């Protein structure tokens, strides 16, 4: 198995700098999700790895060899497209067989009529058909080998695209938002199946998505991409709990993380609207941002945040309470356990200081630690 190494890749479309020197290493057998909002350059990066698009600068290595100058056919990768890109005139079996036909048969053997009688063509074609049927069966498409894509449901087409990818053993799998055209229930199911396939095949996988829940649930590591840059590559748990950048913290997590304009005093204490938060952060004194996940905020009559209730959102397993900071007017959301009484009017909120995230004015994370309550 091989890994993918992307080194300082840049790409420009006219005046638009799509990729600003992106580097990323996917270890052999690893599943890395590239997640970011639309237009951040993640699909462009994937297409450059596949060889469909050419980078302006930087290197692409797959399986230890430099493929930056090779065309897509010679890179030995398989790609699942967002639209599936199935050949509409070919049956399921023929679609899945295409990558094998192109690689195992010579140009003579592929000739329209004559090729059938070329030496060795019959045996090679039989082997290809067997392998394609095997790949189809492993994805539950065994009964649909003779159908055409137009006769399949969205989920079935998606499986055909997957089968076409796994039918040969490529050096790497590239998946470009493969689930975005499926309905919600099917998406969750297929998500599990793709992880299952990855576990079984063990192929290096780069998975592009704009859906953070896909990235967090499926990947070994998540690379968060914004505006043509990768901001952080980490395990899903660390991306969520330990973001290195305010933009990562804001992008990952639903509902969105609460951010409050804060100040860093000379002694390192973090204050919001002049009130000490019971936290000390490293770095230069001045402006900062305090970020709190909604589940880390709780009702606390002695808490440091005075807020005004706005409205409630019932989510089933919990209730989301939307409030506004009494002084700053910034929105703050918190999760209430089901059945909890929702406060009205003005009330106070507290949080566990060790769960609070502090970011500097440049958006970079600042190390923070809790202060003893007595010192405040």
């Amino acid at each position, binding site marked *: 198995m091989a890994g993918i190494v992307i080194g300082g890749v840049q790409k420009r479309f006219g005046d638009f700098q799509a990729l600003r020197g992106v580097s990323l290493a996917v270890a052999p057998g690893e599943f890395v999700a590239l997640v970011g909002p639309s237009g951040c350059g993640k699909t462009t990066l994937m*297409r450059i790895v*596949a*060889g*469909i698009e050419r980078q302006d600068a930087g290197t692409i290595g797959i399986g230890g060899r430099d493929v930056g100058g090779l*065309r*897509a*056919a*010679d890179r030995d*990768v*398989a*790609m699942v*497209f*967002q*639209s599936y*890109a*199935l*050949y*509409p*005139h*070919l049956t399921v079996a023929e679609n899945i067989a*295409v*990558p094998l036909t*192109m*690689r195992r048969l010579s*140009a003579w053997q*592929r000739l*329209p009529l004559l090729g059938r009688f070329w030496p060795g063509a019959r045996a090679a074609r039989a082997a290809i058909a067997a392998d394609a049927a095997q790949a189809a069966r492993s994805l539950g498409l065994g009964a649909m080998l003779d159908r*055409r894509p*137009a006769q399949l449901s969205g989920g079935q087409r998606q499986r055909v695209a997957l089968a*076409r990818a796994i039918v040969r053993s490529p050096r790497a799998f590239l998946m470009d938002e493969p689930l975005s055209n499926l309905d919600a229930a099917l998406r969750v199911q297929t998500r599990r199946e793709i992880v299952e396939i990855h576990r079984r095949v063990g192929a290096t996988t780069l998975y592009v998505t704009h859906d953070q829940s896909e990235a967090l649930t499926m990947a070994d590591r998540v690379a968060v991409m914004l505006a043509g840059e990768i901001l952080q590559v980490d395990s899903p748990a660390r991306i969520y709990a330990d973001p290195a950048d305010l933009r990562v913290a804001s992008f990952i997590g639903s509902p969105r993380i609460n951010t409050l304009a804060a100040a860093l005093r000379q002694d390192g204490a973090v204050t919001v609207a002049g009130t000490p938060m019971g936290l000390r952060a490293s770095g230069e004194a001045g402006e900062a941002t305090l970020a709190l996940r909604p589940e880390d905020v709780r009702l606390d009559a002695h808490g440091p945040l005075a807020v005004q209730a706005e409205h409630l959102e019932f989510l089933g397993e919990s209730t989301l309470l939307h409030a506004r900071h009494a002084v700053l007017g910034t929105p703050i959301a918190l999760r209430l356990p089901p059945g909890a009484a929702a406060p009205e009017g003005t009330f106070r909120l507290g949080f566990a200081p060790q769960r609070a995230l502090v970011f500097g004015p440049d958006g970079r994370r600042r190390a923070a630690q809790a202060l003893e309550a007595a010192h405040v």
Partner: protein
Amino acid sequence: MSETMALARPRLGAGGEALAGLMLCLPATLAYLLLLLLPTLAAVLLAFTDYELGAPALAWIGLGNFEELLGDQGFRIALRNTLVYVSIVAPVSIAGALALALLIEAAARGRALFRAVFFLPVVSLPVAMATAWQYLLHPTIGPVNAVLAQFGVAGPAWLTSSDTVLLSLAFIGIWEAIGFNLVLFLAGLTAIPRELHQAAEVDGVTSAWERFRLVTWPLLGPTTLFVVTITMIRAVRVFDSVAVLTQGGPNRASEVLLYTMYTEGFTFFRLGYSAAITLVFLAIVLALMLLQTKVLDKRVHYG
């Protein structure tokens, strides 16, 4: 309240609504009946009579006109020439247009320019263009033979020799048809999703020929089917260039179906006979359309 509503909107029962629908259909139905159906019907009926323009009476002669057609040397030549013309113009203009469309589609720049250049013959006036061709192909003062003379080749009398006249007309026909077909093929090519070409590349397709076989040609199927049908029907209809350039000559070497129909009807005023030829022409066109819908349609993949 309900009364004002009823006043605001005229009350239409089921019958009233149907009547309104019929009234709305009436102008189009009338135009279809008067301009298309009745003349066609008249032509069909005329084909079974001996009607001549200006004749005081006409007689029903049944299949007499068609019997005469079978033995008519001129008609046989016209039919043969038309088939030869179609079998040259259709394949060459279709294959040529496809090749040009693929080249233009692959070009990095100048697509709009090439499209416009090749489409020009389609929008230009056929009669005026025929006159231009007459000059170009003139045996003594024409530029074509002047160029040939530079290479020491004595050019033939393109439009006045019975050996070359049909070929020359076919060439003009190709020149007219290729731009039209090209634009259709270009439209068909842009409708092919780019991702399919990219998927083919990732799947290991390296040559342009394989890409054409795997993606372009099958997905162009519906376009090709339409182009084949329309080109053949347009070629069977050849008339303008023959009427302007050769009048079917020399020695009937460029006599074609519609030109024979025209001379029989409007030079010899044998409208009944002319109508019979029209019916033969109509049968050929219908056969071509049937070929499209029944045979080819099944072998073409849609969507």
